[in-house]
């Protein structure tokens, strides 16, 4: 069997012009009174995709999910699933299932009754239900807990019951509302990989809502970043991180340093950017910005080097003073206050046990980075 990685590597229907989208949000707007939760939003999700809706609370991501499940109807626009307009179809007739943030397990039913609930509604024969429930219990490794009531389970076990219940009906699309939100960090990381395996093995389309960017980056094929009911960017985790389309996305996903400046000159690929204090940097990936444009150069902390002397070969090097040091175990984060007052965050992997270039508070230090290490964003 092919490894999970190789399957996922070749999966990119969004780059295939002939691929038919599975879920389609077409100019969807949702208003609650005078509050606009979702504003003229269009999105497509492909079959078997693991799609994440990422955003801060109140950005409209849960509303989007609830509209797909049928608990809310769009005020304007339409949602298509496999070519069918979902408008007016009640939740109990939609071929989607949802895993709730609170899990919403039925407290008066045992684990197996919870899992069998949806199958009974379908009118599946009893023998088949038993078989499917046993299969689901095995899948989430809860065979021994079949007769327990939800309140007799741990948080992690409840989460798995909720998952088993929502996939038992083999829905066309599984909607997951903050599926790992209530778990502690360690369990969350384990479960992320379990969810990915499950999605791959069952061949389902997953739409997951999360506010946790790491979770979205780990699990999703593509991420939609939402803000105030609008899509800011839809892209693979790598693209979102390496090539954010806007300052909002750059700031929302991971940490970022922004150098504000003005394009002094540019040729086909490289440009010189002058900062307010006169410092000049040379960068690639200029994008559309022409000479004279106000731009920001965004660069991730791990792409900045910190050293006590100016590296000889460096194209871009700025001098400052070590302002703060945070030792995190696997890496050390330096806050360097440049001479123009800007504080730059640089993280250095602690691969060697002792740093060969020890730096401490208030030392003079140089930060340096390659021209292609960051990205130029319009201001």
């Amino acid at each position, binding site marked *: 069997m092919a490894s999970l990685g190789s399957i996922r590597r070749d999966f990119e229907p969004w780059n295939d012009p002939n691929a038919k989208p599975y879920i389609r949000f077409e100019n969807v707007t949702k208003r609650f009174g005078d509050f606009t939760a979702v504003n003229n939003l269009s999105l497509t999700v492909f079959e078997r995709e693991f799609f994440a809706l990422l955003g801060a609370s109140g950005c409209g991501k849960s509303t989007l999910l609830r509209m797909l499940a049928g608990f809310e109807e769009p005020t304007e626009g339409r949602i298509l699933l496999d070519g069918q307009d979902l408008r007016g179809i009640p939740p109990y007739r939609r071929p989607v299932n949802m895993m709730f943030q609170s899990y919403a397990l039925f407290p008066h039913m045992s684990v197996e009754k919870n899992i069998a609930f949806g199958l009974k*509604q379908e009118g599946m024969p009893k023998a088949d239900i038993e078989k499917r429930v046993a299969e689901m219990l095995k899948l989430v490794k809860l065979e021994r807990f079949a007769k327990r009531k939800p309140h007799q389970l741990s948080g992690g076990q409840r989460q798995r019951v909720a998952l088993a219940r929502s996939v038992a009906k083999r829905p066309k699309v599984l909607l997951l509302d903050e599926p790992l939100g209530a778990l502690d960090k360690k369990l969350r990381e384990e479960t992320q990989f379990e969810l990915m395996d499950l999605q791959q093995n069952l061949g389902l389309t997953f739409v997951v809502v999360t506010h946790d960017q790491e979770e979205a980056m780990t699990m999703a094929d593509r991420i939609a970043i939402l803000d105030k009911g609008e899509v800011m960017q839809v892209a693979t985790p790598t693209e979102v991180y390496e090539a954010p389309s806007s300052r909002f996305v750059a700031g929302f996903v991971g940490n970022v340093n922004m150098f504000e400046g003005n394009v002094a000159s540019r040729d086909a690929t490289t440009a010189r950017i002058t900062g307010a204090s006169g410092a000049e940097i040379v960068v690639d990936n200029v994008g559309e910005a022409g000479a004279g444009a106000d731009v920001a150069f965004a660069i991730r902390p791990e792409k900045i080097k910190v050293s006590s002397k100016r590296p000889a070969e460096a194209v871009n090097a700025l001098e400052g003073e070590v302002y703060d040091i945070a030792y995190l175990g696997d890496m050390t984060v330096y806050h360097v206050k440049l001479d123009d007052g800007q504080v730059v965050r640089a993280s250095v992997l602690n691969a060697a046990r002792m740093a060969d270039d020890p730096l401490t508070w208030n030392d003079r230090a140089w930060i340096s980075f390659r021209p292609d290490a960051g990205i130029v964003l319009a201001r």
Partner: protein
Amino acid sequence: MSVASSAAATSGSAEKPVLARFGSALASRLVIIVPYVWLAFFFLIPFVIVFKISLSQTAIAIPPYAPVLGFGDGVAGFVEALKELSFDNYVWLTQDPLYFNAYVSSVVIAAISTVLTLLVGYPIAYGMARAPAALRPTLLMLVILPFWTSFLIRVYAWIGILKPEGLLNQFLMGVGIISEPLIILNTYAAVFIGIVYSYLPFMILPLYSSLEKMDYSLIEAAKDLGCPPTAAFWKITFPLSLPGVIAGCLLVFIPAVGEFVIPDLLGGSQTLMIGKTLWNEFFANRDWPVSSAVAVILLLILIVPIVFFQQAQARAQEQGR
């Protein structure tokens, strides 16, 4: 050094001075004793007195029964008086069918009224629990509001509504639905109306509290799994509100069995209920011993559902809800 001192500090906080520990144990015991003292004074002792009277015989005296227990004649006299007690009155209750019929009729009337109250109260409680959160305290207030007027006055008011020339008949005849006045007052229907009206808040409040704390996402989950709204109600909402249903039913049933005012004022002379029988024995016949026996049996009948209620509550608590 620092390890040793922190260990000492921990053991110091764990072992309080002996006197303080004794004091706090005494305080917690006192708190537990208070309700028991209350029960002993206001339930157990009166009950023992009533039970003793039920074992006595009627007498033309003050108080109107004999023997009267006391230590006026010393311990020997007390023992002598004890020997005169008998279960004659209980035997009497089994011999006259009036009492048996009154008990059965009371239980049946109370049971029917309880079911009717549940049917009326459930939709109200459900509506309240689903109302916008800001509106709920007001609705709750409206349910409790009738308690601010005297119970007796409210029952009298129903006479004005239900009597042949009362408000209800005037309205129905005025609208033209009926041409002859309906005879409701002094029938069992009036008793049911009276009980349902009077005890409705006792049904609504426990139902509301169990429905209100129910997580609405459970209903959404049921719908999501293919359950239409009506089925979701019977499979999720109703089973989860059962503790409230049981509590509400018992809070209505238990006092309704012994109800006296409503059958007396609204039910007329031919309604047979044990509360009325008791009243008659006590005030009309001045037969304290028999009426005490009636009261003791009534208590025994009611203890059964109360024990059932307590067990149901213990079970619900065990389930962590």
